[in-house]
């Protein structure tokens, strides 16, 4: 069966993931971590992927850059389209070229993702050096240093020289994350994948980092694939949203549509679980049950065991990701009706 080409969106997407299924071969068995993923990101747009911990969003992000250990990863089907190539089949050499220069990645915890033995400056110069090497240019150390300091300044650092010479333990969390973002965009990538970039930061710093990312989209026309379990972050940043559950995309579409009228019961459950300030006091409802064991996921819909609307059909047959009347994609046998 063929899933629709991509989440409805840009006419000429930069990144186009089609029907991607991934299995991980581990000691305990085969984990079916991704199943039929379809996603597209265009230039200058921010696409959000939201889901609870363990739903596979990080693995999806790492798959794009080929960061999953080839010894255990088996792509059962699908392709990751980038610039006319299929990244699933790209050579190691090609992937090394793409990383950092065409697709950049920002990770979650700026403390552990920073080598404690090197300064922020070294880190940036490594990234710049890599970009120059891929482009076949030789660059002088002084030029790279100047560019690094300039980049730090543009990203809102007050004393870029000081930050340049600082070690990670001398910088605050927010500053570290800025440096990591700087390194990710130093190669001038067309797409930036941000995997929970603000989860490890304080709320006030969170807002700053998100603003920074928005600026990058506006000034450089970079596309962003933003991953988070925090609906608030996704809602404030993204035009289009994809909701993931247990390795599958259950619903995808524009933010306005999904957040106001969720069609999939899981999306509805997520929204209901978010406590809202100022609204009349309602019970915060969780979603009963727990995520399926990916060694042996349910035969039919993966959400069926926890779904209030599940029927016999749901338990037998996997619902395909289909376009609904208003243009969004839903994977459900009994979606909320949409006009």
């Amino acid at each position, binding site marked *: 069966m063929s899933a629709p080409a991509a989440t409805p969106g840009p006419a000429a997407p930069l990144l186009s993931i089609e029907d991607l299924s991934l299995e991980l071969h581990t000691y*305990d068995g085969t984990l079916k971590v991704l199943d039929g993923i379809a996603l597209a990101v265009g230039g200058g747009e921010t696409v959000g992927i939201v889901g609870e911990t*363990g739903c596979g969003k990080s693995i999806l992000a790492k798959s794009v850059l080929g960061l999953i250990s080839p010894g255990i990863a088996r792509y059962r089907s699908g392709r990751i389209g980038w610039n006319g190539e299929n990244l699933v089949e790209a050579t190691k050499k090609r992937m090394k070229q793409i990383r950092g220069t065409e697709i950049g990645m920002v990770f979650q915890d700026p403390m552990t993702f920073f080598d404690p033995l090197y300064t922020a400056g070294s880190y940036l110069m490594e990234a710049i050096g890599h970009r120059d090497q891929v482009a076949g240019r030789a660059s002088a150390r002084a030029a790279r240093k100047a560019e690094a300091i300039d980049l730090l300044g543009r990203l809102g650092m007050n004393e870029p020289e000081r930050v340049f010479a600082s070690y990670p333990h001398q910088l605050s969390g927010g500053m570290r994350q800025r440096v990591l973002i700087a390194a990710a965009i130093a190669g001038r990538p067309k797409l930036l994948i941000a995997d929970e970039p603000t989860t490890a930061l304080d709320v006030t710093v969170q807002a700053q980092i998100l603003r920074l990312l928005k600026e990058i989209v506006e000034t450089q026309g970079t596309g962003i694939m933003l991953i988070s379990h925090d609906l608030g972050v996704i809602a404030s940043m993204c035009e289009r949203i994809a909701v993931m559950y247990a390795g599958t995309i259950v619903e995808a579409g524009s933010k306005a549509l999904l957040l106001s009228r969720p069609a999939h019961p899981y999306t509805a459950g997520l929204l209901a679980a978010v406590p809202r300030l100022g609204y009349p006091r309602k019970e915060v409802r969780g979603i009963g049950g727990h995520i399926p064991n990916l060694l042996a996921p349910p035969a039919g819909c993966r959400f069926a065991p926890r779904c209030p609307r599940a029927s016999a059909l749901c338990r037998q047959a996997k619902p395909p990701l289909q376009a609904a009347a208003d243009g969004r994609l839903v994977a459900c046998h009994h979606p909320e009706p949409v006009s």
Partner: protein
Amino acid sequence: MKMTDTTLAPPSGPSAAGERLDRYREARRALWLLTRSFSSMLGLAIVVLFLVLALFGRWIVPYPEAALGSIDMAAMLQPPSWQHWFGTDDMGNDVFSRVVIGTGISLQVGLIITLGAALIGVPLGILGGYLGGWVRSLIMALTDLFLSVPSLVLAIAIVAVLGPGIVNTMIALAAVWWPGYVRLIDSKTLAIKEEPYVEAARALGASTPRIVLRYLLPGCASPLIVKASMDMGAAILAAAGLGFIGLGAKAPSPEWGAMLSVARGYLPEWWWFAFFPGMAIYLSVLGFNLLGDGLRDVLDPRTAR
């Protein structure tokens, strides 16, 4: 939204019966983990073999009198054969019998050294770790000092004063070994002391001896077991080393190191004399090391390699 992992571990119950079931399950799992590792099983097998030889060697060797100083010049320095599996030594004694009986000596020596060091080191470690302050500073200073001089060198110096002999060797080695235990127990005590359940016990009025017996000692048990089994190997090696230099057991005692020391003079023609006792030392140390590694992987998986 609850986060659960995707493995098959069942949740454990909070009741008392559930707790006992957990401990039983833990123990079984630990044992199962141990058996999964080839090297740990090999180590266990070797250790058990040597233990058996140590305990019953006297009765199973073909020539028990070989360890008692008999002399049979006619059979002197014969190569390995069916009558003498490891050949004979310079006194005509069966090397195999001597090596087997020597197992008892080496294991005994290793055990006494390890026990002695632990008996000194563990109380000092608990004392320093629990009381803190100047007591701890003093103990740690003394410990660091002993640790800064290589153990073998200090042991030789002590034996030089006390005089050669197997007992003095044991005393000297135990005297240089205890600081290692102080370090280990001290850090473990410090960690356990800060645990909420110890604070709670103290708040409820538990006396110091009770805290020591009920919380500190059991908590130190795992790393102690691991260290003790690794130390057995190291102690056997060190004692054999001192024996090799000539400071250990006196003839005709079939101590491995001493045997090697004598055998050295008969190389290279009569090689078996030196080869087999050395091999015995190597295997016994290897066995204890492998076992210790396996125990560590089981008892403290965080440091497993």
